[in-house]
């Protein structure tokens, strides 16, 4: 491994998502590769969550700035579509962080598509209802709890 590669990888992994800043690029499963060339040039490969995710440009800029600030002489950020990202790439750490922020994480992958009810992140009730299939960002939908009446966001499943 070229010198600095481990550092570059760790720094890129910890860059926060611009829309959900409590999640890192690594939590989201969108950091694909970090390579350091002989001159210390870093190439970072990201994959978008949604085709039209408007945050990708900002992420690329944040990664570039973070690595330049750490002294890497040049940074190139590319995006790669295949294999396509899905919410199954969210690790346990990401799911725990979403729950801690009162955002219901996507249901785990099931062998057959089934409709699951979501647990209210405020009171734990299973009596919840979808208000809107879309939310404030491409990755979320809007729900409401019928017991505590609080609305909550859901990081919707994409697969």
């Amino acid at each position, binding site marked *: 491994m070229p010198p600095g590669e481990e550092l570059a990888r760790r720094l890129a992994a910890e860059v926060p998502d611009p829309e959900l800043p409590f999640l890192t690029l690594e939590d989201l499963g969108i950091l694909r590769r970090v390579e350091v060339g002989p001159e210390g040039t870093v190439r970072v490969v990201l994959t*978008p969550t949604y*085709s039209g995710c408007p945050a990708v440009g900002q992420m690329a800029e944040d990664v570039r700035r973070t690595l330049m600030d750490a002294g890497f002489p040049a940074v190139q950020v590319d995006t790669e579509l295949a294999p*396509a990202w899905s919410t199954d790439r969210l690790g346990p750490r990401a799911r725990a962080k979403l729950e801690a922020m009162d955002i219901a994480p996507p249901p785990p992958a099931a062998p057959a598509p089934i409709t699951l009810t979501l647990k209210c992140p405020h009171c734990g009730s299973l009596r919840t209802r979808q*208000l*809107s*299939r*879309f939310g404030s960002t491409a990755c979320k939908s809007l729900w409401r709890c019928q017991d505590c009446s609080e609305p909550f966001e859901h990081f919707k499943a994409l697969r």
Partner: protein
Amino acid sequence: MTAGVAGLSALDLHEVALALGDDCLVLSHRLAEWTTHAPELEEEVALANLALDLLGQARSLLSLAGEAEGRGRDEDQLAYWRDDRDFRNLLLVEQPNGDFAVTMTRQLLFSAYQELLYDRISSGTEPRLAAIAAKGVMEARYHLEHARLWVQRLGGGTEESHSRMRRALDLLWPYTKELFEPTEAWGRAADLGALPPLASIEGPWRKTIQSQLESSHLEIPEFSAWQSGGRRGSHSEHLGHLLAEMQHLHRSHPNATW
């Protein structure tokens, strides 16, 4: 740019990526026209998100079309500097939004088509097309689900919503035959396994639409005076108006950024 690994010529790859990308770009613009006009706030957000997904797909497809062409045109040049006769989208996606029933009927007809198409392209022999389709199919699936829910509600809703849905179907059905008419480039790409033969998805598409309409108390209109030509650049006047709005700013202020 040389030929793809599938043996598909660069020009054919350009042609088919352009057709798929133009469908996304034009429909994205149509959906964005609902912004500030949607029937409720949640639907406003929904339509904008659908438009955003399609715009993302359009960007990838038009970038690929530009690369394959090898004349240095990027996604922006293809989106902003072509005139209507150079657009290759289906006539269906350029049809005006009409009322909400028309918009949702168009979404049902197109999303069902796009989902089948992307699903097959994602396992096709052209890796760059396959990558874009594998990403897009998950989005198309979600869009189809959204359209289904609305068609169900409107078709089985009030007398008014039901009759509007019937009118919407009568209005849009004539544009559906074109979905399954291959261009020459499409035919060659299908022979090489990069795209599915359109005849092979017509049956599954019709089945999806038919069962959705049946459960929504609606039916496929009996007769249609078929309209086609979009894939060859022969468009309705509606596209010209859409492009005038979409391209005006960029053409008045080339290279403007904001």
